[in-house]
């Protein structure tokens, strides 16, 4: 006879309400883990999209994400000629804010050379950029439909393709434009500033615009990226790093504090959950003191009483976890930033919740084992 089951069945409404409350708490824990994973994934997405082996940036810089970097536009040709480099592409990155349908729209703009490394890895709708100017591939998170017009700087762009899941480390959706457009957008002076420079005799030349933030390169499998990066660094005006180094910079510099903050908060939430589960189980045990005394008096062994408490705790944890997981799975798309729910995280949390339930029930078990059977006789 499973006493835990009978007790739950008899007090189903109260038990489910308790599970629901616990589920909301565990849902928050799960969402925090998802936000943590999303933060890391977002940070790495943009650096992984080119699928590069080497990042070439300005000497002394850890750009283009952690620090600013500007290198000459012809660097790509020089890199492409290095032994073992199969592909190379120039890239620019910038954040900007524009207005779309009378609302502010923050964007992360990637400029690349169509047909070369650095563009979007997958276009889910529409087509790639085919014209040299004023075409844009936007991420779905911008809510821009294909054919929509978008003003960037002094020019109007047309959305020709859509990507999915392309965001910056700050969570802003990414748009891709041609390198020429991005250089104009990033480096060209505003008309008034240009006029002032002309008056000073420093007219901006087209060569001044031919600057990029980084060059990405792909190597043949036989070439070690670390050795290739060292070879590039022998050119004194350039710095180079492997894809792994770039990802490490992103994780250890760009999102490190946010990552730690969310990680710490998740741990705190787990501790709070443990305390709450322990209190719930303790209260549930307190409510059953007389029944436990009676069971002891009629001869129930300790394992029956421990089973009653621990099984209820586990059932509560499992049902609460399922409530929480279902809730977060269904509302994850409504979060302003990506909530990345991974099966292994869910399983790990389920395991932790089960462990927490067993640990938390120790308090209730201790209380139950101390109950004097004589209590049932009324003193």
């Amino acid at each position, binding site marked *: *006879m499973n*006493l835990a089951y*009978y*007790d739950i*069945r*008899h*007090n189903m409404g109260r038990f489910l309400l308790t599970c629901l409350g616990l589920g909301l708490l565990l849902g928050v824990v799960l969402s925090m883990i998802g936000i943590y994973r999303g933060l890391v994934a977002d940070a790495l997405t943009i650096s992984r999209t080119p699928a590069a082996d080497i990042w070439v940036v300005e000497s002394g810089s850890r750009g283009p994400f952690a620090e600013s970097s500007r290198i000459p536009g012809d660097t790509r040709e020089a890199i492409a000629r290095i032994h073992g480099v199969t592909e190379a592409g120039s890239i620019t990155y910038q954040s900007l804010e524009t207005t779309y349908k009378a609302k502010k729209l923050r964007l992360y703009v990637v400029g690349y050379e169509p047909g070369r490394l650095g563009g979007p890895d997958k276009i889910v709708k529409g087509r790639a950029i085919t014209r040299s100017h004023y075409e844009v591939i936007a991420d779905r998170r911008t809510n821009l439909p294909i054919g929509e017009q978008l003003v960037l700087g002094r020019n109007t762009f047309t959305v020709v393709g859509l990507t999915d899941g392309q965001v910056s480390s700050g969570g802003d959706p990414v748009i891709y434009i041609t390198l020429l457009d991005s250089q104009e957008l990033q480096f060209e002076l505003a008309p008034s500033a240009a006029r002032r420079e002309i008056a000073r005799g420093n007219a901006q030349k087209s060569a001044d615009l031919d600057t990029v933030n980084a060059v990405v390169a792909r190597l043949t499998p036989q070439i070690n990226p670390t050795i290739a990066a060292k070879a590039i660094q022998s050119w004194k005006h350039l710095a180079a790093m492997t894809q792994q180094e770039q990802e490490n910079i992103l994780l250890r510099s760009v999102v490190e504090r946010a990552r730690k903050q969310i990680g710490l908060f998740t741990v705190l939430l787990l501790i709070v959950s443990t305390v709450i589960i322990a209190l719930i189980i303790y209260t549930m045990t307190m409510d059953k003191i*007389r*029944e436990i005394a*009676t*069971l*002891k*008096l*009629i*001869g*129930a*062994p300790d394992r*029956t009483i421990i089973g009653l408490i621990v099984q209820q705790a586990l059932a509560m944890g499992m049902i609460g976890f399922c409530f929480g997981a279902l809730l977060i799975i269904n509302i994850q798309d409504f979060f302003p930033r990506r909530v990345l729910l991974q099966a292994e995280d869910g399983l790990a949390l389920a395991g932790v919740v089960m462990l927490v339930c067993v640990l938390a029930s120790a308090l209730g078990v201790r209380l139950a084992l101390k109950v*004097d*059977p*004589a209590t*049932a*006789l*009324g*003193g």
Partner: protein
Amino acid sequence: MSDDVQPDVLVKLKNVSKHFGEGDARVDALRDVSIDVYPGQVIGLLGPSGSGKSTLLNVIGCILEPSSGWVSLDGEVVYDGHWLRPDLRKLRLEKIGFIFQSHNLIPFLDCTDNVAIVLNLAGFSSMKAKARAIELLEYLEVDQRRHAFPAQLSGGEAQRVAIARALANRPRIILADEPTAALDSVRAGIVMDLLRKVAAEQQAAILAVTHDEKIYDRFDHIFYLRDGRLETQKN
């Protein structure tokens, strides 16, 4: 003292004492109490509050360890200066049935399961336990309420179910703590008649602590306790 075991005596206490505390704070709850209870007897334990009735019941129920003396239950010496069985709960399960003042049924089990749980604990299969439980509920004429939960029962019905639970494992000793305190005089009489019937048919010994004067005439013997001493044994 094992030579003192008499197979026909179900409960035998010799010079059992129990005290709480030491020195000035010492309270003697039982002093040299000796009793013999035979099969089929219904015994009343009477006395004013604090006289040691509940302590005596707890000692016989193996809930409270005596300070000294000798106790045998159903032909087995269980206490001789110390408990002789390591697992007293198993001993209770095998030999003793309990009936409580407020019946103490498990609120989340229906009547059948409240009775069957004792048999489950004794190792019976679920099916056999339920069959025996229903049989007992029929015997106590409360089988029509077998699917009801304790909160849905009247006081008399609940006490009958509690008696069924006490009888489930066929114990030869039944201890009752104020079994009629929560019942009116009619129902109290019915419950006592039931206990007498059980004692006679199952050759069990029933010891009941009570303050209820209405049922004094239903006992075969009355042990009267005062300040922990057994003062009188009335037939």
